[in-house]
């Protein structure tokens, strides 16, 4: 700089340096105070997630370093080299410098090669699949609900969890055990995503994806929310599910109950109650009008003729289509059940599939 | 000045250059580049679809892919038309307008005959119940040959235009960029067919 014909006052450099230092201090303060936590992933819940989280930390540290270095350089430059009234003559016409070009090609290359190497290492760990997993789950994502089939070693379905969230719902897994998940979709692409697993995988129709995880031992009793991460239509944001971590004993008991429930025959229609028939196919009911007598319980014999993975139910709502009167559990495609409803007052109601309000999978229930 | 001295030949490839290939021909070459990429997309889809479906072609349709059937004649016609097209270019470069008209006329007719044969072929396939909706095989077959056919149709239109302009005496040994450009396009259409024939019928 001493070669420059016009000497800039040293104070300008000081001010510029001061501002840059201040900015760095602010960034430092943000992280030191814990406010920077917002930029960290949630607590990793699986051994795989712990690896990913560790990798994230490294990438993040490098990112912050580069951010501070380059933004600092920019800020310093624009503060230090503003044109002053005395600047009539041109500044030195520097056209380039092969040495520095080589440097700032080489150094980033080394950095990205390093990042690639550690990423590839973590990838191998995350993608690894054990030959004999402790638990096998076949997750099916249909528009717009999840179901989880628990398989034995030969691939036979032991039990099916059709309630993806809520009380008694969710995909239960034992902690500390290898859980091998296969993914299938009967319709469009979905994605299985649990933020605390730091992991998602697409559920692609016509292609069975798989992955494996082990929930950390200290997470027993935790419920991890998950949801579909690939736009799948109008019910996309409602495609929620939970993963429920249990001790091995709890898990065994839970699975036994689920198997038991699967073997139970559907509840017989209460004798004497009037029975209405309703069939669902191609995301539509076979009728848009039903009639029921007022003041007595009644039954809808419901048959879902869509493919497995496409769930339906028959809820009764007020005429506005949103206020729930009576709620029912969904059933999977290619299944049937008897829904029993409590007595209703005379009037007009809406019956609706809670999974498919759009396009209108709904009709009018007249009670008289 | 120093720069100019340092580069004694900086004007060689610059300026509103009249040297090298003309604007329309360069434009056509670039257009053909984009067309190549378009077909590359379709070909990639074809191979991906084929890899995901065995046997290929499905047994019911296997017999339609006989390379020695009528399709071989269509292929020979189209390859021949590329030659006549090139003869036409050489003719007009020499200033031989009669030779140009004769050759481009033959090319035009061959193109039309090829299209007619393709229409006839489609008719046969439809009568056998093979349509765009006949699974991946029907879809890829009709998409690939259909888009090629559409390009042949476009090429025939262009040939018609340069035939008409040739008859109106608009081309000479010096001024015939349109002929050069159309011939490039016609060769491209021909090459695409050779590739198509190879992947559909031979391998």
């Amino acid at each position: 700089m001493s070669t420059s014909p016009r000497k800039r006052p040293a104070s300008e450099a000081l001010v510029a340096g001061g501002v840059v230092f201040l900015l760095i201090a602010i960034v430092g303060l943000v992280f030191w105070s814990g406010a920077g936590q917002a930029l960290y992933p949630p607590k990793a819940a699986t051994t795989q997630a712990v690896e990913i989280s560790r990798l994230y930390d490294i990438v993040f540290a490098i990112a912050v370093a580069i951010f501070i270095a380059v933004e600092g350089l920019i800020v310093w430059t624009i503060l230090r080299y503003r044109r002053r009234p005395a600047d009539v003559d041109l500044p030195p016409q520097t056209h380039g410098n092969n040495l520095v070009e080589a440097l700032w090609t080489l150094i980033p290359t080394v950095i990205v090669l390093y990042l690639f190497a550690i990423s590839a290492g973590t990838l191998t760990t995350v993608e690894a699949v054990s030959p004999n997993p402790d638990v096998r789950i076949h997750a099916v994502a249909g528009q717009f609900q999840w179901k989880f089939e628990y398989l034995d070693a030969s691939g036979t379905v032991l039990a099916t969890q059709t309630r993806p969230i809520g009380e008694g719902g969710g995909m239960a897994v034992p902690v500390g055990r290898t859980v091998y998940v296969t993914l299938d979709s009967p319709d469009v692409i979905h994605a299985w995503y649990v933020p605390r697993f730091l992991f998602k995988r697409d559920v692609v129709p016509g292609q069975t994806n798989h992955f494996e995880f082990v929930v950390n031992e200290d997470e027993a009793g935790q419920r991890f929310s998950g949801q579909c991460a690939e736009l799948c239509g109008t019910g996309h944001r409602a495609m929620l599910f939970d993963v429920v971590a249990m001790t091995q004993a709890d898990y065994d008991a839970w699975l036994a109950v689920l198997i038991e429930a699967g073997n139970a025959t559907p509840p017989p229609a209460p004798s004497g109650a009037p029975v209405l028939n309703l069939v669902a196919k191609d995301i539509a009911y076979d009728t848009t009008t039903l009639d029921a007598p007022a003041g007595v319980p009644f039954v809808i014999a419901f048959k879902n003729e869509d493919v497995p993975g496409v769930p339906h139910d028959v809820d009764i709502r007020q005429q506005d289509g949103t206020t729930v009167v009576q709620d029912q559990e969904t059933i999977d495609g290619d299944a049937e059940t008897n829904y029993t409803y409590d007595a209703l007052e005379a009037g007009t109601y809406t019956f609706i599939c809670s999974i498919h309000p759009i396009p209108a999978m709904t009709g009018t229930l007249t009670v008289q | 000045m120093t720069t100019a001295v340092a580069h004694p030949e900086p004007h060689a490839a610059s300026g509103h250059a009249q040297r090298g290939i003309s604007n329309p021909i360069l434009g056509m070459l670039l257009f053909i580049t984009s067309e190549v990429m378009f077909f590359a997309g379709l070909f990639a889809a074809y191979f991906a679809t084929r890899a995901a479906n065995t046997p290929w072609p499905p047994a019911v349709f296997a017999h339609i892919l006989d390379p020695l059937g009528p399709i071989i004649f269509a292929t020979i016609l189209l390859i021949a038309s590329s030659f006549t097209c090139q003869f036409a270019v050489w003719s007009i470069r020499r200033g031989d307008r009669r030779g140009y008209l004769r050759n481009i006329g033959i090319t035009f007719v061959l193109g039309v005959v090829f299209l007619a044969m393709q229409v006839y072929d489609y008719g046969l396939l439809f009568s056998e119940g093979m349509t765009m909706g006949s699974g991946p095989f029907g879809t890829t077959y009709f998409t690939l040959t259909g888009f090629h056919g559409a390009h042949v149709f476009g090429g025939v239109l262009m040939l018609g235009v340069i035939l008409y302009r040739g008859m109106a005496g608009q081309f000479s040994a010096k001024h015939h960029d349109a002929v050069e450009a159309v011939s490039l396009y016609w060769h491209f259409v021909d090459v695409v067919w050779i590739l198509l024939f190879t992947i559909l019928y031979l391998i």
Partner: protein
Amino acid sequence: MATHALSPAAAGYRGGVYEWLTTTDHKKIGIMYLVNSFFFFLIGGIFALLVRTELATPGIQLFENEHVYNEAFSIHATVMIFLFIIPILAGLGNYAVPLMIGAPDMAFPRINALSFWMLPLGGILLLAGFLTEGGAAAAGWTSYPPLSERGALSSPGPGQDLWIVSLVLIGTSSILGGINFLVTIFKMRAPGMTLFRMPIMVWTILVTSVLVVMATPVITSALVMLFIDRNYGGSFFLPDEGGTAVLYQNVFWFYSHPAVYVMVLPAMGVISEVLPVFSRKPLFGYKAFIFATAGIGALGFSVWAHHMFTTGAVFLPFFALMTFFIAVPTGVKMFNWVFTMFRGQLTFSTPLVFAIGFLTMFLIGGINGAFSASVPVDFALHDTYWVVAHLHYVLFGGSVFGVFAGIYYWFPKMTGRMLDEGLGHIHFWIMFVGFNLTFFPMHMLGIKGMPRRIADYDQFAGWNDWNLLATIGGFLIAVSMLPFIWNVFVSLRNGKVAGDDPWEGNTLEWATSSPPPPYNFDRLPEIRSERPLFDARHGPTAHGGHGGPDQEEAPKLLEEDGHDDQGPTA
């Protein structure tokens, strides 16, 4: 032609509407590109505000149902990408490139007009979807099948078909425009304008055009296949019938990743023009910059599958490595820009302020992209708001700031009047703050697990504050447009008269009148470097500064820098 060129003030040049509608003048077409693009920027912006309003608080408030929400963000992205950013950069190129290389017009003026007019037509077709049964396309701007196929729960209506037709039309417009640029750049340069004396803006348009010509037809093929599936019983992407769903993603991203560079390279070109002018220094590492641009273009074709890391259907390490590598030439550019300003004399006119905005924001867009290049981290971040943050830091923080730098920079040339500096700075600061308020919180949302494209979220997920902040920021961005629009309208009539060269520019467009005459130039200065006007102003010896003893200041340096590869390429 020659007579026209000699009478720049030819009457009728400022003709009426008919004149504009039928023009083949690249400058008028360029300006029409800009106006048309800003119109669609407004429309895309309104959709963005609708989306942000819905997301401001949990629950479904604004839209009657999720389908309309899906339409809103799908059309927002489609409009912003295909009808705003790509065309507005093409528009700046259309205006600037012939002027910068000393050409009278584009190589094919009528095809140029055709390219332009396909855009509003495509836009109208796209938006016409709202009038059809089932509404506009709602499968996202990526429109992955089978969601974009004709299922009852997918995309049964004609809106999706209109989307396809519209994109094919816009794509064709891009291809024709790209061919036009390439022929213009290769064949229409003024005497002395060798390839390695071209302004960087022209180089970026050159590389962009190569990408457009080679990549856009590929998306056309994907769209055509989707159309066949939807309307003629095809089964390309229908797994039930033997098709492959992921095939579309491969073909789509083979275009759409290079398309990202189509959306950002010309903006890099703009700021590579602005930074030297307002620093009073040449661009640092002119050649390195060109090679970096070409390198980005070439690598751009080998990274498409990094959008598909979670599909379980791509070879992860290869695409991860290529994606990391693409950071290198981008980094080279960043340092070249900063060192262009380094030891310069910076004048903080609005174009420079926006260019610095580009530098600081694009840097973040590059850094947060590196997270997604790391495959395991991408497993966490893919399809979350992190990606939304990343792409907006690149395309808004990068491209849009670059676009505004270009608008403020060339407005005097286009109209003969200066934009007001005060309003320009107000515009910048509101936009800068609004932009960061909108998109920085999305990093937090993404890493904490909020997926993209959801109309509603759990109120206890801890996402409420960040979402509200982002919505406020979104409206601030909208507000920042007001001083800009006001500025344009006022300055058109009452702005300071610009003169030929208000900024002491380096490149040829500043050698002609403002606005330039039809066919652009009465006469051209001698072209002996990439800064012909600088040479004319200061004399060729000025390259060496004023006799400073520093090695880098010696006149030799341009030669050293320019020699090695001149031979074969020239």
